[in-house]
């Protein structure tokens, strides 16, 4: 997260707002609801109160306009810039302008007004752009229905740095662990560290030993207690046992971990040779016998040669074409003696490379003792 120079913010945390000009793409009620939901995301995690007024001068004035519209930042027609906002200050400070040349919606066709308003109101409150791809304050638009669009911990830390924590509301300081025995439980990522399988979900980690004597030993905790410095949800992870290295992927970045310590700076997934259409990796697993690392992204998979340090040609290929019995998408994957395990949805598929087929299917959270 980041702030404007001198960290401007609203002195009075009861902030008024008004919609001065609406878009014909949506009903007034839909616009007001989208704005209200977006404001609520911020007031849920900081001691802020928003009051809509319909007369007089509001702190935050929201409006739709196209091309040149009275400030020094004309819009650019469809696509490109969707909206902009001004930092907290008198007059135009805090105001939000949406580009009327875009198609606005509640989440179907067109750009989600809720998602864009949530971002722009972050500016109105004093935040600038974040480099964390999972943050609402990331500069580029990612399509979201309002149901799955939440502030990331980066956003929460940013706004609470400016305004503190809400006094009377419960804000999860340490998010509670995901409900691992829920029948629909699915994983974000998995890998091996020495003799332990490590599972990731949201920002939680479980470590299960594979040593038979302690088979039912399962450790768990918040990701920051195992990997300080990685605070985004993990998309994928793989290990190269021979090198004792673990690779963790979040968004377009990856980290190299050795002895549970992050080595060097974050790398870019594009160093592996992914096309820019790939914005994140879903799952990854290293097959030491062939010195190959297999990446799953969407319905496709890629094969990376660790020795040549480049993607093998002829990829990506469709997962279902080559992996008999595996669903279209893979959430997580790991390899240990006995086979390759692919986690998709709420199931775990044991895949036999030689037979080229699934040999066993169990509930995914069996690995977590459920």
């Amino acid at each position: 997260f980041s702030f404007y120079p001198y960290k401007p913010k609203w002195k009075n945390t009861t902030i008024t707002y008004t919609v001065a000009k609406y878009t014909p793409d949506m009903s007034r009620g839909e616009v007001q609801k989208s704005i209200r939901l977006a404001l609520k995301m911020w007031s849920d995690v900081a001691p802020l109160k928003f009051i809509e007024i319909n007369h007089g001068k509001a702190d935050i004035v929201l409006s739709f306009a196209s091309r040149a519209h009275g400030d020094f930042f004309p819009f650019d027609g469809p696509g490109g810039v969707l909206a902009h906002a001004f930092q907290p200050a008198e007059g135009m400070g805090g105001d939000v302008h949406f580009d009327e040349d875009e198609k606005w919606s509640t989440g179907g066709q067109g750009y989600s007004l809720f998602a864009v308003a949530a971002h722009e109101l972050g500016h109105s409150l004093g935040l600038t752009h974040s480099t964390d791809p999972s943050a609402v304050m990331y500069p580029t638009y990612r399509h979201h229905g309002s149901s799955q669009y939440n502030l990331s911990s980066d956003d929460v830390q940013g706004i609470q740095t400016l305004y503190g924590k809400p006094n009377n509301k419960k804000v999860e300081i340490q998010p509670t662990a995901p409900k691992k025995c829920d029948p629909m439980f699915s994983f974000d990522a998995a890998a091996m560290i020495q003799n332990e399988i490590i599972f990731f979900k949201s920002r939680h980690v479980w470590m299960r030993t594979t040593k038979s004597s302690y088979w039912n030993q399962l450790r768990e905790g918040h990701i920051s207690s195992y990997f300080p410095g990685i605070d985004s949800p993990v998309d994928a992870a793989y290990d190269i046992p021979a090198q004792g290295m673990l690779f963790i992927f979040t968004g377009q970045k990856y980290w190299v971990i050795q002895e549970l310590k992050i080595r060097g700076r974050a790398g870019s997934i594009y160093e592996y040779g992914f096309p820019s259409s790939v914005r994140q990796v879903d799952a990854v697993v290293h097959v030491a016998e062939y010195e190959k690392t297999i990446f799953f992204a969407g319905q496709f998979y890629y094969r990376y040669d660790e020795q040549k340090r480049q993607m093998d040609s002829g990829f990506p290929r469709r997962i279902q074409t080559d992996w008999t019995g595996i669903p279209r998408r893979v959430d997580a994957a790991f390899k240990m003696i006995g086979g390759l395990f692919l986690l998709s949805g709420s199931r775990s598929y044991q895949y036999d490379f030689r037979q080229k087929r699934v040999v066993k299917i169990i509930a995914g959270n069996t690995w977590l003792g459920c």
Partner: protein
Amino acid sequence: RPVDEDQKMRTEDVELAEGYLRRFYSLEIKGGARRARSTSVMEEKIRKMQNFFGLGETGHLDSQTLDVMREPRCGVPDVDN
């Protein structure tokens, strides 16, 4: 593709990039500035943008960088607000 179409593509890419970097990374290319100098200023801004988006910091307009520049986004600058 005929060469002039390639050339046209490249010109469009450079124009896209200059507009993007001017708007979001406070690129200033003064008229008449010596070519070499404005190229290195441009490369430095491209590198800054690539770092922000976690791309390989090549300083060149590779396809990944151009694709990110084409993505719909917020109009507030990423740096030097």
